[in-house]
């Protein structure tokens, strides 16, 4: 496979050319997260001839991933995302060097891993990881390409590019876990991460080659419902560019370690008599409909009722959408950190669609 032939459709572009193709092959890109955003980024960068691709994820493929994570097939369910992606990408482009990290990004490993790369792509699904990536990239002076979703909307930007503004220049404080719902609780339409992820892949190419105008100091807002895009300009704030060390604590390091169970998996549990199911909705909601065996303790009363809960059993928390049960999880874990407590994502909304 000749190099010039393989990439001829992009090297013949007048404003791209062979020189920029060489830059792609000389660069090392880390993609944090192999979900809805990470997969199109990995697939396109690999196809286009990036030299080294760092891949990081510790999840396994689950059935509910398939509606948006389109590299995975039904046969992959239960397999390590990292292994599946590496295998498929190797088949796509045998010239690429892959560095695989079977872990989530943590305070302990972030600096050592990111140091090895030229550009970092934030394809995570939680604020803790995003702020950790930001701070590590500022410390190590690496640009990072950001993409994130909410419902039918997406955001894209390039932070810390040539001393440009950082993520904290836009959003200084990390939101607490109950302020802003994540995709688990809020839902995401399958195609949205594909759109935002490919925009991120394009920004990676621009950062590496200098072609076009890098989305630095600008936040791109995309609304899938109206196909409207807007760009907001924002300046750097020197305080955020002078981070010298990581924070002591980034709170929960991700959705990944939050003990979550999906409704279909909960319904498949066979040991119902040895568990406790707590419905944290209000009594009116509970009276309207609830699962057999559920005990109603509204979220507002949960911490006062904690002594009544038998933590020797596995405790499952349920609400309408999965938002309150997650707050309840944090409250109970704060008091009983060693107990087996799970929150049921999607709540009764999703449960109803499965039961009916």
């Amino acid at each position, binding site marked *: 496979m000749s190099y010039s032939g393989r990439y001829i459709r992009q090297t013949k572009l007048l404003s791209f050319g062979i020189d920029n193709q060489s830059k792609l092959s000389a660069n090392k890109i880390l993609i944090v*997260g192999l979900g809805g955003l990470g997969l199109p980024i990995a697939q396109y960068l690999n196809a286009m001839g990036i030299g080294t691709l760092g891949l990081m994820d510790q999840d396994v493929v689950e059935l509910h991933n398939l509606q948006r994570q389109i590299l995975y097939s039904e046969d992959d369910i239960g397999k390590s995302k990292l292994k599946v992606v590496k295998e498929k990408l190797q088949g796509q482009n045998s010239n690429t060097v892959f560095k695989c990290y079977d872990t989530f990004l943590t305070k302990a490993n972030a600096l050592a891993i990111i140091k090895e790369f030229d550009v970092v792509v934030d394809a995570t699904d939680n*604020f803790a990881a995003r702020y950790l990536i930001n701070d590590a990239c500022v410390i190590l002076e690496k640009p990072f390409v950001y993409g*994130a979703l909410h419902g039918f*909307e997406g955001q894209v930007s390039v932070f810390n590019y040539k001393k440009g503004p950082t993520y904290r220049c836009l959003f200084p*404080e990390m939101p607490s876990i109950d302020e802003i719902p994540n995709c688990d609780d809020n839902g*995401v339409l399958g195609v949205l991460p594909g759109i935002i992820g490919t925009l991120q892949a394009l920004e990676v190419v621009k950062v590496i080659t200098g072609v076009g105008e890098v989305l630095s100091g600008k936040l791109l807002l995309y609304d899938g419902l109206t196909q409207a895009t807007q760009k907001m300009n924002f300046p750097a704030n020197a305080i955020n560019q002078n981070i010298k060390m990581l924070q002591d604590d980034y709170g929960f390091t991700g959705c990944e370690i939050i003990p979550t169970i999906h409704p279909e998996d909960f319904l498949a549990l066979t040991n119902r008599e040895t568990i406790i199911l707590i419905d944290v909705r209000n009594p009116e909601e509970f009276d309207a409909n609830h699962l057999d065996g559920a005990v109603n303790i509204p979220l507002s009363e949960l911490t006062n009722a904690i002594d009544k809960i038998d933590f020797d059993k596995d405790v499952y928390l349920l609400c309408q959408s999965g938002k309150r049960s997650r707050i309840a999880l944090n409250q109970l874990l704060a008091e009983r950190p060693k107990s087996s407590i799970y929150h049921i994502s999607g709540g009764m909304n999703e449960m109803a669609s499965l039961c009916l």
Partner: protein
Amino acid sequence: MTILLFGVTKDIVGSPSLSIPTASITGRSVPKTVKDLRIFLGKAYPELSKLSSLAVAVNNSYAQDDQKINSYDEIALIPPVSGG
């Protein structure tokens, strides 16, 4: 004054945009700065004032709290979003 809403602010308010008065007929004060606007919206929608970070854009540029606003400005509320 029309305010475009993004992310969770759209969910909190329940619509993609919001119209607020710029001239006072009733004698109630109207927001003259970004800070006034934050306070005004926080009273109408207490969930908005709970957000740790909420960027306000005036005419497509990030605005500090002391920036003056008027009825011709295009304003947007931009919270962080986390999904991937």
